[in-house]
């Protein structure tokens, strides 16, 4: 496949409802199952080790009209929670055999149990991801929690998660993450050769196919990207922060670049590139995964990190990506992102890094006002 063909394929995949993705995969792999995880971090390795397809449940984007979910969740709840539920009501998740939710925020917690109540026939598991980052007991606890997930999958689907299979899955996902990191590094170096929407569709597709498949795509993509023509332009290098759960419309990301920015770092689809280093190695794979959650997680608003200031991870990202500014892009009503905005903004101000706040909703379709704000911001930075 050529680069363009891969991108097209990824775009198509991302536009499909998760149910259709799961059904097709299952048709190609008879007897198999697909388990979707609500953002942010998904224990994809455990699902993969059970021989299942791990995929992301990322809401309905612009594709579904809310007809049932609005009555369940009030006006002040973020769109991804509502549209994820709506996908279920409209049968668009049929084919997905189970769901994993976790305590990323109060909405996600409530959504998990409401989901289970409304769809009693599907498998729903809820994981508690620790918010304590320093106590000695945390890693072992996280390992236990992952074992509990594995046991639940085994019971429900008559599969087994052996330590050997899990170790293999950790290795595979390490490889995938290494490639995704390399792709991000490439964009930092040559943002003119890889736009953010392109990177995004590849990343999104990686949450919908087995890791072996996305690894193969990424290898081809790399080989082609290096030779891709592209002249650097005079643009503002920015980091996008706060879009870790609900996904911004592609149009918004496109507009950001059209309005004069190179996005050189972001926290889109964080879950599939959650660990900063390799996880696999000798010893109990659950313990390794638990320990990695404590020590090698990317900084995220959904996770408490007691060892460094909330703004530190972001500032480090800005420096590493040689960015000029930060565009905060929280989903409307997203409590974790909106709270962190304050501490992060203060941290950036202390470090002398300019920033702009742009809230979004997944169904947003006109960007004119936002475009003006961004253009003004860019001009004030580039030409002041």
């Amino acid at each position, binding site marked *: 496949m050529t680069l363009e063909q891969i991108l097209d394929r990824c775009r198509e995949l991302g536009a499909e409802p998760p149910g259709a993705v799961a059904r097709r995969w299952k048709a190609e792999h008879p007897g198999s199952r697909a388990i979707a995880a609500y953002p942010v971090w998904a224990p994809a390795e455990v699902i993969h080790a059970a021989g299942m397809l791990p995929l992301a449940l990322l809401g309905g984007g612009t594709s579904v009209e809310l007809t049932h979910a609005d009555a369940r969740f009030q006006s*002040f709840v973020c769109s991804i929670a509502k549209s994820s539920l709506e996908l279920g009501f409209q049968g668009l998740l049929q084919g997905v055999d189970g769901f994993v939710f976790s305590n990323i*925020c109060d909405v996600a917690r*409530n959504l*998990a149990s409401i989901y289970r*109540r409304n769809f009693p026939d599907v498998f729903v598991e809820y994981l508690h991801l620790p918010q304590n980052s320093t106590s000695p007991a945390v890693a072992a606890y996280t390992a236990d929690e992952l074992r509990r997930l594995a046991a639940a999958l085994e019971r429900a689907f008559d599969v087994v998660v052996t330590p050997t299979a899990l170790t293999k899955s950790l290795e595979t996902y390490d490889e995938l993450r290494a490639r995704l990191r390399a792709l991000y590094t490439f964009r930092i170096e040559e943002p003119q050769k890889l736009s953010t929407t392109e990177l995004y569709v590849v990343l999104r597709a990686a949450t919908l196919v087995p890791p072996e498949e996305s690894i193969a795509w990424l290898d081809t993509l790399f080989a082609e990207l290096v030779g891709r023509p592209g002249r650097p332009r005079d643009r503002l290098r920015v980091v996008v922060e706060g879009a870790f759960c609900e996904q911004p419309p592609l149009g918004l990301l496109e507009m950001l670049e059209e309005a004069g920015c190179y996005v050189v770092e972001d926290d889109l689809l964080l879950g599939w590139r959650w660990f900063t280093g390799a996880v696999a190695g000798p010893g109990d794979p659950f313990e390794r995964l638990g320990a990695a959650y404590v020590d090698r997680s990317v900084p995220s608003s959904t996770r408490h990190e007691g060892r460094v200031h909330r703004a530190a991870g972001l500032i480090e990202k800005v420096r590493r990506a040689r960015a000029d500014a930060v565009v905060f892009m929280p989903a409307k009503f997203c409590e974790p992102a909106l709270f962190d905005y304050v501490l992060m903004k203060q941290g950036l101000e202390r470090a002398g890094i300019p920033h702009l706040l742009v809230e979004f909703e997944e169904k947003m379709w006109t960007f004119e006002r936002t475009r003006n704000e961004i253009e003004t911001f860019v001009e004030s930075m580039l030409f002041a």
Partner: protein
Amino acid sequence: MTAPVTERRYQGRVHERSRQLMSAWMAELGRAETERRPTGALMISGNCVELLRACHVLPMFPEVTALQNAIRHKSLPLILKAEQAGYSSDNCAYVKADIGLFLDGGMGPGKPIPFPTITVCNYVGCNVYVKWFEHLADLSGSKLFMLDVPFARTAEPTAADIRYVVSQLEELIALCEEVSGRRFDIDELREILGEAARAEEGYARCKELCKARPAPFDAYFDAINMMGPINVLRGTREAAEFFDEAVAEFEGLVAQGLSPLTEERFRTVVEGPPPYPYYKNFRNLFTRWGAVAVASTYSTVGGIWEWGFRHDPRRPLESIAEQMLRENLTNRTIVARYGQIKRYVEEWDADALVIHSIKSCRLFSAGQGDMREYFTRELGVPTLLVESDLEDPRYYAEAQLRNRIDAFFEALEHKKLVAGAR
């Protein structure tokens, strides 16, 4: 409507004693700095106040400060101050009111309440707690201890859950020893837990008394007078005695057949926190209809004592962990809450469910539409859903609330009449 219902002048010793006890606690906090006593900030939900008490760390509760400011109509300027600093209008207003106070220097040294010496985030239920205490620790420069309490996701807490929480409690004890310079004494904790269990027994008995017709107090609006002692002062002898007195008073009212209103016409179960900035106004909207809450979920945020759980001095740390993990409203799923409400409706023999949805509190509110579906469609319980906020007066639209509430009780009255005529 027939003869108008009003409140009886009933607020007796319980109300007065609660006020005295809470003022004494505030005064003690106010003196903490001069007396060089360490303080520890805690959250109300499923808290481990007994442990701090046993460690000689004076507990303080930012939520209580926030609600007191709201009742005194002082929350809006504080919220606005926080919003100026960058907090979103959609963020939990409790946090904003508290941060606003800090930004105002209101809790600062020399003022009535000192900054906490340690900030203990008992992460029970609400994710906003994590943010709140991260911010509080950042502003106050105090040491943050993040006590991670897994959300209920199995019928009972697992052995791993209990072990995990207990091991963190042990760490917290070590931290408290450092802060207070005093050695922790497990026997002292046992004694404190004994007092806690006594208070829990008393509170549970009070709630039980609301099964009487009429109920002797309003288990939503009047329960607030008991929530201070049970959540903040739990573990003290004063709190245990307070509940002894409360039980005696309510038993007396039951014997006399007295209600908080001149007439009990409707028995409701109320879900969700109250709108503190307009507490009295909101209450009046129900009083007019003779509606008395016989049970409420909000009164169980700190602990659910009515189902029989008591702290156990023989298993001190384990029982604290169990209470944090399971025996409180907020660490259970919203759907588990449906079960709790259903039991209230049935066992307390209620006519209706009232859901007060809080705009800025997603832990309580996100999904209450589903809750209403469940109660009206599946159980046939008349359910009213109204919306405002527990802290932000801008979200309280009285005319709108009144219309909804009046229409609901009118319909309920009609239903009763029709049923009676059959």
